[in-house]
């Protein structure tokens, strides 16, 4: 008899599809948070598979800080058209109008305004009772204990001491009005699983992930993209560097790395060589030790 053991990627795929369908079956108004990044791209493919031949049966929400890469906006709009997505773009316009930006506010305050606040407002505005996010448990230590269904109170806050136990694949979907659940279908995927799956499934990606000559500002160990009028200090000069982004956030907070990886196999090879976790280049995680945990308690994903 031929072996009927799923490969680990297909086992993860089956688990994620089960989660996506379970939420659609049990919640009245789910939404998928879409960040244009590689994890979001995988989550989108899983949603296509879960509901094939139907279209994705929930809206897709992009919380836009206004400081993303131009290529990300283009990619997002093309994908939405191609898949027939109900794409909702939400920004904290009041804060942007008041001049909020990462250069003067600092990353913590900027994130609080343009990401966390915007996200909570967007969820409230849409009346969503469940929101899919692409977070993975291997990203950061505080995420290792996150549930797949993560319960949030009326203020969107997460209480790590009061989480519902989660057994088997039997998820407790009971909430009161005003309470919400964040759902993480990719909880058990690692960064390498994501890349392998993208390769296996030939999932289209933003080209920012691949190495290319780009105009950057090199400051110490940091290589900073220049979009959105990044304030250059006296004596600094942009230069062309062959770089790629290891994870995609706002231009200012996403450090680039020098790289020669122009293709997916080259990229994965580079990852194995580097052995550095992908968030290292994200400035926000390293502000204070345990900073991600603090952000999460306040409602960040």
């Amino acid at each position, binding site marked *: 008899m031929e*072996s*009927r*053991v*799923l*490969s*680990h*990627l*297909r*086992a993860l*795929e*089956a*688990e994620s*599809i*089960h989660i996506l*369908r*379970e939420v*659609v*079956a049990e919640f009245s108004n789910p939404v998928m948070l879409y960040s244009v990044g590689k994890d979001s791209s995988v989550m989108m493919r899983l949603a*296509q*598979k*879960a*509901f*094939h*031949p*139907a*279209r994705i049966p929930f809206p897709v929400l992009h919380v836009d800080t206004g400081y993303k890469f131009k290529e990300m906006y283009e990619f997002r709009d093309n994908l939405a058209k191609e898949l027939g997505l109900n794409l909702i773009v939400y920004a904290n316009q009041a804060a942007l109008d008041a001049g909020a930006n990462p250069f003067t506010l600092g990353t913590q305050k900027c994130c609080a305004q343009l990401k966390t606040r915007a996200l909570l407002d967007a969820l409230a505005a849409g009346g969503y009772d469940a929101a899919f996010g692409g977070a993975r*448990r*291997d990203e950061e*230590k*505080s995420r*290792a*204990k996150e549930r797949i269904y993560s319960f949030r109170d009326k203020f969107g806050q997460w209480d*790590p*001491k009061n*989480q*519902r*136990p*989660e*057994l*088997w*694949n*039997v998820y*407790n979907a*009971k*909430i*009161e009005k005003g309470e919400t659940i964040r759902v993480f279908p990719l*909880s*058990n995927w*690692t960064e*390498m*699983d994501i890349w*392998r799956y993208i390769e*296996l499934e030939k999932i289209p990606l933003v080209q920012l992930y691949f190495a290319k000559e780009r105009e950057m500002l090199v400051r110490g160990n940091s290589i900073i993209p220049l979009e959105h009028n990044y304030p250059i200090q006296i004596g600094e000069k942009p230069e062309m560097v062959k770089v790629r982004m290891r994870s995609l956030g706002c231009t200012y907070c996403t450090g680039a790395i020098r790289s020669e990886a122009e293709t997916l196999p080259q990229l994965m090879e580079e990852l194995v060589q580097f*052995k*550095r*976790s992908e968030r*290292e280049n994200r400035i926000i995680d390293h502000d204070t*030790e*345990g900073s991600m*945990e603090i952000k999460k308690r306040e409602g960040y994903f």
Partner: protein
Amino acid sequence: MSIESQLLRFTTAGSVDDGKSTLIGRLLYEAKGVYEDQLASVRNSSVNRSTGPIDFSLLTDGLRAEREQGITIDVAYRYAATPRRKFIIADTPGHEQYTRNMATGASTADLAIVLIDARKGVLVQSRRHAFITALLGIRYVAVAVNKMDLVDFREDVFRRIETEFLAYAHSVGLKNVAFFPISALEGDNITEKSARTPWYQGTPLLEHLETVDLGEGHNFTDLRFPVQYVNRPTLDFRGYTGQLASGVLRPGQTIMTLPSGRITKVKSLPSFDGDLAEAYPPMSVTVCLEDEVDISRGDMLVDPARVPHVSRRFAAKLVWMHETPGEAGRDYLLKHTSQTVRAQIAKIRHRIDINTLAEQPANKLELNEIASIQIETRRPLFFDAYAQNRTTGAFILIDAITNATVAAGMIEESTADSLEPLQLGSLEFSGETEATVTPAERYKRAGHYPATVWLTARQELAGMLERKLFDLGCSVHVLADDRESHLLPELARVLNSAGLIAICSIASPDQTEARRAQQLAGDTRFLLVDPQQLPVKDEEASEVLMKMLEDRGVLRRKERFEVGEGI
């Protein structure tokens, strides 16, 4: 790790001092689950409890508060991979009050690593870990006898632990148990065979994790497909989606749908990547059927030759997971596969002392207690024993008011003997709560009120009375089941609420049930006759009883004369 590698989920159980965090840290490090910057952050960590060049335990301790306390207090998931396998590690604490977390981590695991400190041997907690491992149905156990370096790698120490643990493991039903003499701190027998244990013939721990047979864990014979979501994008497509719990699905295969019992065939297994020729667990698929059948979420597709149990009541083991104690008779929501139903704990049979396995009586279930109980649900479930099927045998209980997940349940092999009879008194009847048909309407149609007549040791009289009442045009039924006499009060109440006269005929003179029946029926509609005062002859006795029913207003006198003797 390659695209073809397999997935092993395992859990770790051990107490604070067994070196569990160090072992996991070591496995992560050896299996490249740790990135350089994470190692760097451990080296720089503000809390310094370092015992070696790298304190591997700091890699696995999670949240701030816990780190400050120096103890992991919840389930944390870790990931590692070797070229052969990807690992999902549920890291659970071994402290007594955290049975809940251990059960959570164990629920999805294929294998459990139980840590034993070589210096301390098999402790009460080691037994506890073995018990929970067996309870949650984990197929493989790897006993890591740690800190062998501190006992000079002596074989006799290892063998003694092996013998003792094995005896206990067998007593709780664990089968595949393997032992490893290791030092997590120094790396012996983790990735390579240690030169310091020449007497050890087995494989290193990591190799064992890479090679245990995963296919054995799946049941490919009994089709169980809980319908999760009905996908109807257009009028001409109706796909039933779900994750296969067991069995294999193929186009053309005959299946039965539950609860309807309809038989039909699988038409196709459409997918994003084209139609599938076959689906097996744990695949998430879409099923199209030959016939238009009315199926919704919570239904199940099964093999008609191997159907699951279908019942509203069953016995189960329960792990209580909440500070609010569990009680019989309280309303809970029960989620089982894709169904959520109202349920009650009908009876707590006994609590199990997790340290001694002794069975103790209990009225309540406190946090972290394990008990053998009986469940009654409002609607029938389709289930198998947990030992046979970890998906269709598992459920959770949710507090109907707070929405908290309060318990995890494992359904036991059900035989008629193992179940207490159904306690109907604990259920609500729609006839009473939603009065679509009122008692007045029933009276108008039947020509009499409902009542319960209680007769002791007069079986023939009961039959005669039934005949007489029936001939009068009354709706009447004799309940005479001696084996389940304690059920009669509830059954009589059901008949009463349907407007019938119930004649309960029981052999035993015990009045306990009679008093309960009186309570349920109400004084005016309950007729209990002292056997001493009733005429010995059945004919006479039945007349006395008829008269009594008239006097109580159950029967209308006039009708009796009209139909009775032909006057």
